[in-house]
């Protein structure tokens, strides 16, 4: 895994985040809603991404837990935990 930061800021180390129960490496300082959905479903999705509910916790201090919607970005922190599901079953 190369430690290349994609964008601004100082040198970025590789972070481990957990997406839907699986540990995953991340090399960016922040990820978009769509990037997190892609991490959750590496086999790809066919429909529109707004079908997904994304929750996170163990994030950065000012807002360590919450949800994301399409178009939003979130700052990453080592050990941060994401869940990505289509919350459409009842």
């Amino acid at each position, binding site marked *: 895994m190369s430690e290349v930061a994609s964008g601004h800021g100082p040198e970025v180390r590789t972070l481990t985040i957990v997406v*839907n*129960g*699986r540990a995953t490496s991340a090399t960016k300082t922040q990820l978009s809603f769509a990037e997190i959905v892609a991490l959750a*479903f590496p*086999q790809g*999705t*066919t*429909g*529109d*991404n*707004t*079908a*997904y*509910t994304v*929750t996170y*916790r*163990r994030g950065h201090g000012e807002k360590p*837990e*919450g*949800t994301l*919607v*399409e178009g939003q970005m979130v700052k990453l922190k080592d050990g941060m*935990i994401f*869940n990505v*599901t*289509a*919350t*459409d*079953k*009842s």
Partner: protein
Amino acid sequence: MSQRLISRSPDLRRLRDDGYAIEVRAGFLLVHDVPYLSVGRVIQRGVLVSALDLADDATVRPSTHVVYFAGAHPCNLDGSPITQIEHGSGESTLAPGIVVHRSFSNKPGAGYQDYYEKMTRYAAIISHPAQAIDPAATPRTFRVVEADDAESPFEYVDTATSRAGIGAFAESLHGQRIAVVGLGGTGSYVLDLVAKTPVEEIHLYDRDSFSQHNAFRSPGAASVEDLRRQLDKATYFQQQYARMKRGVIAHSYYLDATNVDELREMDFVFLCVDNGDVRRQLVESLEAFGVPFADVGMGVYASERGLGGVLRVTSSTQRRRAHVLDGRRIPFAGDDGNNEYVRNIQIADLNALNAALAVLKWKKHLGFYLDFEKEHHTTYTIDGNTLTNEECA
């Protein structure tokens, strides 16, 4: 139910037969027209009120010796207040129309055997001084108090609410017309919780049949005979809940553009459907009608270390609606869209929690529960036991 309750309870029958003006309302026993001396030695009449402990629509031994009183402080013959029975004072609404001003405490060594002993004891204590002045000042008036049976939202009295003394809060739930659209796991638990509130009507919408797998994520315990009857879910649940709740109405069909107008008259709608296209259509219609609603849904996945996932309750009220139709909070993708890799995992405890979160939101909307956040989008994440509140009004 109060006439039935009185006829099945020897102690209440005896009170009535002795001429006490008794009434059973909202789980309370009221003894009207009890004379007492107020300050200045004036004869007045007040109402003794006791919570009722019941089993099988008959009284059981009273669990508390305390009684409430609607009236001024009763006095002795010399005009001094009767202090021996003082317990509490301050106006309080026990249930709609039952306002009391103080409570009394007088505990015999063995407690009270029944409501006859309890109510006649208190009636005697406060009415004796009045009777000493005027022998006609008796609580045994033989006045008949009409029952309010026809108005009860339940088949038997809700003593949980009266025992807890929260009737005034429950009043906010009276008269409501509620729809539960979709009676899968979550919808059936929504029904289970709403059926224990005094709402006027609960409309159930589902055409699917109630089959074996449904029994494992619904409240209660369906019998093999229940399954063999192959009823549609709306009818099955209507029959189950009509045993307790009045005003449960089955609609054994799906809602679409041709009949969605039926939701126009609802006070609140629980959307518990699986199909994204149906969900979109119902959300758009409810938004157009201005009817408040809560949309529920869960997404559960299997990981190597157990099942994970998220439960969601997204609501729309007069306070806040914009987050709903912009499509970002409620999943509107069709069944054949991006969901094709996902199995339909649902578990009864998750269905029950999702339903409970939605019903809590509805009760906050009505002012039953304290609500500082006024959130309109809540998630529960399994792996962290985490709740989030967003779209706060």
